[in-house]
């Protein structure tokens, strides 16, 4: 078997399915055969589930032992409303919480800042101070749930608030479980909700990883995310490569800060998109585990098994959902969820059918959760670990994606690392190109989107969408102003000034942040204090 020919041939198939043109070539094999796997070595490249390099999954029995965590991303309006939605989801059988914050919170500004106008409570819950966080988790014991907090630039501050709530509930810090997204690199690359320049931003990440390693041993200190990279328009390969290369950057930063790899690496977690191309997505998840195992063992000398395991959350693609014929989105999400489960995800969010139009209604959110429950309890899919392992096609795709990712790592290493690559605009430009190509392909019908450029119909019924009342900001601002009037001014001033001092030194900032939030310093005040030392990031134009 000629390896090069196989390569060319299989790559063409990938492109025909709407995948990265950089995998394109001229021949298409009609089928895949054992010859395509002639280079594959079972022990070296796959291993049993639970064994290095974990291509087939991180646990020996996968979902027979424990189903994936069903973790629906939610959060809107006030802390009280989100508390209600969280309790509703827990009652419906959801096993972990996932909190969305509104944009002012994500950008580290308070609800009464003029820039917050129109944004308060819109795409997540508004958190200005510890008081909001206390309301958010009222009646929910933090040793009874795992909570994923989707927040990046001010992640360390939200984590400080979460720890403060646990302290107040009398929960042992060692029992706090969950994840803060805390992945600033993909913000510079894709989602673009940054505050500080890359270097001080990395310091906040490293400080929080170090704090978690020492004090929150059961907490995932970071969720290194490809989801946003993909949703910004990247290909599956770019998502895989940039995400794992971001992972390498974080590991290197922690090593430079003096941490030992096996102390912190077991708690690094990942987060991927599940998009439309079914087999390519499954292959991407499998390739991610194989790549990370090799990176951690060979590049960083990690000894612990857990350090070498790529554990990840998956979110079905929001971008793939259409505003046209929105009921069809349930079907898209089902296929994407199935791909994630066949790919061995550890936790899953399924999108709601109305997300191309607005925030999901309770009914739409319930159908999305039910989709996972049907998959878990009726389909039989979770009974077997990595059921596609050994498939000529899936194994070939897995190897191709892996190879493509190594190619990107080499390029980014040659630039001096991910921060340098970001400063050059490399990943940003790659994503922009891919996203523009995709748009053109849809418009020329080279790629089909049912209900959009084929099978179009006007007979869809309008679906109810959720609106956030503009009065919400007024309430939030009123509460915030009452808080500002009632708290201990001297203590707020004092803790903020100590934080500023610490920011100028190389001390870990987490204990200082916890002091600030416990005195009800607001998120905006804390972020502003740090901005005085760290400066603000301005994106160069590419």
């Amino acid at each position, binding site marked *: 078997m000629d390896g090069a020919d196989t390569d060319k041939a299989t790559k063409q198939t990938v492109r025909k399915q709407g995948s990265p043109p950089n995998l394109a070539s001229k021949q298409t094999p009609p089928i895949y055969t054992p010859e395509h796997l002639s280079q594959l070595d079972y022990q070296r490249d796959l291993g049993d589930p639970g064994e290095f390099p974990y291509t087939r999954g991180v646990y020996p029995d996968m979902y027979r032992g424990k189903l994936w965590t069903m973790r629906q991303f939610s959060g809107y309006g006030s802390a009280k409303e989100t508390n209600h939605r969280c309790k509703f989801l827990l009652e419906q059988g959801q096993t972990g919480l996932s909190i969305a914050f509104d*944009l*002012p919170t994500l*950008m580290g500004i308070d609800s009464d800042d003029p820039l917050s*106008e129109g944004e308060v409570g*819109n*795409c997540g819950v508004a958190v200005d101070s510890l008081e909001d966080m206390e309301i958010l988790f009222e009646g929910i014991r933090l040793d009874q749930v795992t909570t994923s907090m989707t927040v990046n630039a001010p992640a360390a501050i939200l984590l400080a608030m979460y720890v403060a709530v646990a302290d107040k509930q009398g929960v042992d810090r060692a029992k706090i479980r969950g994840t803060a997204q805390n992945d600033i690199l993909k913000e510079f690359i894709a989602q673009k909700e*940054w505050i500080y320049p890359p270097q001080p931003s990395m310091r906040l990440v490293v400080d929080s990883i170090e704090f978690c390693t020492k004090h929150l041993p059961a907490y995932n200190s970071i969720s290194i995310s490809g989801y946003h990279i993909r949703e910004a328009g990247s290909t599956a390969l770019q998502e895989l490569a940039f995400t794992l290369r971001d992972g390498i950057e974080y590991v290197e930063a922690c090593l430079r800060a003096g941490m030992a790899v096996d102390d912190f690496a077991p708690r690094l977690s990942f987060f991927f998109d599940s998009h439309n191309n079914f087999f390519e997505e499954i292959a991407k998840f499998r390739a991610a585990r194989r790549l990370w195992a090799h990176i951690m063992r060979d590049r960083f000398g990690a000894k612990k098994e857990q350090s070498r395991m790529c554990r990840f959350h998956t979110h079905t693609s929001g971008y793939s959902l259409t505003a046209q014929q929105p009921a069809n989105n349930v079907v898209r999400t089902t296929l994407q969820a199935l791909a994630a489960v066949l790919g061995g995800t550890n936790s899953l969010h399924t999108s709601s059918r109305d997300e191309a139009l607005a925030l999901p209604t309770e009914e739409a959110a319930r159908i999305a959760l039910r989709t996972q429950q049907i998959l878990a309890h009726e389909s039989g899919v979770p009974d077997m670990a990595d059921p596609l392992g050994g498939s000529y096609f899936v194994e070939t795709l897995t190897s191709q994606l892996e190879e493509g990712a190594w190619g990107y790592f080499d390029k980014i290493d040659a630039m001096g690392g991910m921060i340098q690559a970001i400063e050059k605009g490399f990943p940003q430009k790659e994503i922009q190109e891919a*996203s523009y190509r995709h748009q053109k392909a849809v418009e020329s019908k080279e790629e089909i989107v049912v209900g959009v450029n084929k099978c179009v119909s006007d007979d869809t019924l309008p679906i109810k969408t959720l609106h*956030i009342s503009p009065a919400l900001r007024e309430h939030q601002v009123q509460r915030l102003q009452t808080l500002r009037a009632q708290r201990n001014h001297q203590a707020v001033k004092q803790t903020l000034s100590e934080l500023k001092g610490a920011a100028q030194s190389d001390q870990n900032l987490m204990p200082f942040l916890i002091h600030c939030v416990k005195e009800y310093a607001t998120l905006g005040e804390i972020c502003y204090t740090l901005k005085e030392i760290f400066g603000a990031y301005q994106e160069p134009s590419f």
Partner: protein
Amino acid sequence: MPGQKIRVLIAKPGLDGHDRGAKVVARALRDSGMEVIYSGLRQTPEQIVQAALQEDVDAVGLSILSGAHMTLFSRVVGLLKENQAEDILVFGGGIIPDDDIPKLKEIGVDRIFQPNAHTSDIIDFLKETLHEENH
């Protein structure tokens, strides 16, 4: 407008950083021969209107995915009026629910493009509308 290139400002008001759509639209308009200025992220309505006036654009395209469109689009339209620049065409896109579209039209947004709109629709809309206005 014979012989004259259409000038468009593509702007991102509000706090969201989702610039995929804005950038794709900016590039498609540019590829179709228009002159396009992209504002960059997180511009206030005041900054957007100031840029529109300074750059003497024919149209302003607003992209927002955070749900703040009712507040921010109406501020942009209002500020254009205050500056006697209501002849500038205003269009928008993002995650905008159906129910909001008539309300946005009422306050003076000329056209909303929802997710999955084609860039060719946006180009046609600009060419047709601006062409008619000039004849």
